[in-house]
């Protein structure tokens, strides 16, 4: 009696084990020619490239694109780090942000050298500095440039008018100083605005800090990318002083997610790199116009680049050839122009910029955004970023600016001291 039961049990167990093994051995071999391929891509925020996926899938019926969009660059960064550390799990194509590009550059072996897939033939398509940014120390091109972030100033024309300030784009640019716009002048206009209307001029000071740092020839790191450039930095200290002095005309709001407050007219200006246009219009329902938002061709302190994404193809991808083809296609001028139309990130290819030069944005009062952004991109050189750049921005100056915004710090010296204490604790001096 035992024997019969045991035999049956062994048979069932054996079958189950075999079934388990069979499911484990899924096929994932190399594809060739017109074999069905599924490519995975991870993006973040509103990059506007999902508009292009359908087009690609139409042209290549054997390819299916599975896109994952993470909420913001920080989430994408943590996700990419975890997967690089684990050695597996990266999608075939990964969007990399400029903020953490230098960290990825240290481990660029996780991504293929796009020169093996023909990127050098089209090298001149891109702005030179953008192409260089995606290259590591050994000359491998690990990231194909997607967009750049030339900055202009978004403002509420209607609120300016109510405060007795000019509301026309060109006049607003002159108001802030045009080509010679300075931060002092910006805050002066702000004081005027708040005095006239009693309402805050801006929502959060951290953008003015980040914009300032990006405008300098050398940011948190010197040109060698290793030496810190903060401790004796006169310019940074002065900018921090300026921000602290003018904290009272700010609204004390958090940096992001201020859609409700925007609709309540709680602030009238917004530092707008090209991708921020999508963020601001995203605060409102789709296809809204007449909100009063406009976009001026000026940035206090001069031209600067903020952000910009790249596409990398992971070494662990089972379909490197197809993925590289897709990545280079997405980074091509026509697709960059299509993304711009969809969500605002400004093309980093010269032809792409030409394609969008007459683009007009209905949300921003029909502003000729293509023209303005091309003008704002003129003369911009990307700054050398070091390995701890995002840590310094988020964890050293971020908390201090938050406290300034909430009115907890009212002395520029105190603010700087606090920042230096945090810097010593968080960034080990090499």
């Amino acid at each position, binding site marked *: 009696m035992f024997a019969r039961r045991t035999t049956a049990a062994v048979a069932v167990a054996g079958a189950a084990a075999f079934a388990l093994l069979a499911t484990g051995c899924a096929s994932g071999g190399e594809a060739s020619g017109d074999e069905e391929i599924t490519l995975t891509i991870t993006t973040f925020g509103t990059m506007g490239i999902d508009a292009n996926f359908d087009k690609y899938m139409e042209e290549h019926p054997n390819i299916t694109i599975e896109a994952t969009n993470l909420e913001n660059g920080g989430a994408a960064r943590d996700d990419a780090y975890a997967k690089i550390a684990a050695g597996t799990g990266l999608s075939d194509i990964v969007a990399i942000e400029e903020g953490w590009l230098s960290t990825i550059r240290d481990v660029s072996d996780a991504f293929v050298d796009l020169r093996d897939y023909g990127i050098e033939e089209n090298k001149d398509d891109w702005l030179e500095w953008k192409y260089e940014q995606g290259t590591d120390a050994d000359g491998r091109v690990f990231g194909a440039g997607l967009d750049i972030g030339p900055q202009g100033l978004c403002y509420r024309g209607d609120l300016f008018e109510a405060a007795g300030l000019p509301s026309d784009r060109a006049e607003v640019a002159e108001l802030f100083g045009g080509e010679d716009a300075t931060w002092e002048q910006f805050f002066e206009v702000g004081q005027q605005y708040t005095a006239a209307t009693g309402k805050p001029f801006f929502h959060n000071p951290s953008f003015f800090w980040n914009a300032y740092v990006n405008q300098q020839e050398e940011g948190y790191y010197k040109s060698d990318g290793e030496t810190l450039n903060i401790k004796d930095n006169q310019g940074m200290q002065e900018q921090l002083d300026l921000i602290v002095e003018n904290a009272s005309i700010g609204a004390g709001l*958090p940096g992001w997610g201020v859609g409700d407050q925007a609709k309540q007219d709680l602030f009238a200006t917004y530092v707008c790199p090209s991708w921020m246009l999508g963020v601001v219009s995203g605060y409102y329902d789709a296809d809204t116009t007449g909100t009063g938002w406009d976009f001026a061709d000026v940035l206090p302190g001069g031209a600067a680049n903020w952000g910009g994404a790249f596409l990398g193809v992971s070494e662990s991808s089972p379909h490197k050839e197809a993925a590289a083809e897709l990545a280079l296609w997405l980074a091509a001028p026509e697709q960059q122009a299509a993304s711009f139309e969809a969500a605002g990130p400004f093309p980093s290819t010269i032809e792409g910029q030409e394609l969008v030069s007459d683009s007009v944005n209905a949300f921003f009062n029909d502003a000729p955004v293509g023209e303005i952004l091309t003008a704002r991109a003129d003369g911009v050189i990307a700054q050398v970023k070091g390995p701890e750049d995002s840590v310094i921005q988020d964890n050293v100056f*971020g908390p201090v600016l*938050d406290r300034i915004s909430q009115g907890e710090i009212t002395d520029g010296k105190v603010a700087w001291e606090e920042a230096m204490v945090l810097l010593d604790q968080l960034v080990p001096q090499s």
Partner: protein
Amino acid sequence: MTTLAERPAAGLTFRQKLSRFDFKASPYLYVSPFFILFGLLGLFPIAYTMNVSLYEWNLLKGQGDFVGAGNYISVLTDPFFWNAVGNTFSIFLLSTIPQLIAATVLAALLDQAIRASTFWRMSILLPYIVAPVAVAVIFTQIFSQFNGPITGVLQLLGMDPIRWGFDPFASHIAIASMVNWRWTGYNALILLAAMQSIPRDIYESAALDGAGKIRRFFSITIPMIRPTMIFVVITSTIGGLQIFAEPKLYDGQSNGGANRQFQTIVLYLYEMAFPRRDFGRAAATAWILFVIIILIGLINFAISRSIASQDAGRTRARVARTMKGVRS
């Protein structure tokens, strides 16, 4: 006739040996799947984390130099770590104490003969079923210092808005409310199960002796659910010291607030591991947290044992006196 000497010298047959082996070994084989899985997925990572904590380990670049206790020392001397410990204990106490009191009271209420008792008992478990992410998103909106309903009520009453996202204590209260909302029902049901196993005639005899409802609650119910209470306290402690999802999602951007107002130990660990990419220190933090939890668990255990043995001692003494009286 066969003599003893003519018996087969081998003793048991192969069949019999197999049967005996089966009898002795099969219990171990039946429980082995769990232990194998635990060994692979539980024990090995724990041991490996200890290994990682002894090295200078960069998240992306991998293993570095051997530093022994270096990571532990740098974590224990990091003021941000102690800030996280303070935040964790604050949130833990704010969440566990009201939660257990509320759970006990709820369980006592549900223990009464009320109508639709099954409906009530199932409803208090509903918050536990909601995904923590959803809870965090909604509570963040409720506690928003700019648009939240609580701010609206405070404005109506003419009071200053509370800065839920900025002030440390206010943020602790907000996060503790999330935790309480989720776990009170769960703990209440566990305590209810314990209360239902108390024999009813004890209550009856107490009522006959003139004890009111409150007196019966404090003198009978609470002492008799003590073992379950200890269990609930220990599991709440372990969970409370490891709070991660609620503070992480309370402020979608940062790891515990721009100024670490509500950064718990596990959030500190996360910050070490990912944005700061220092795996060695993150692993050291994990082990330090483990030690802290064991310490608190031991303290809990010691306190509850001393209370229990006090009572047991008194009861034994009383019984002994009564017996003496009976015998004499």
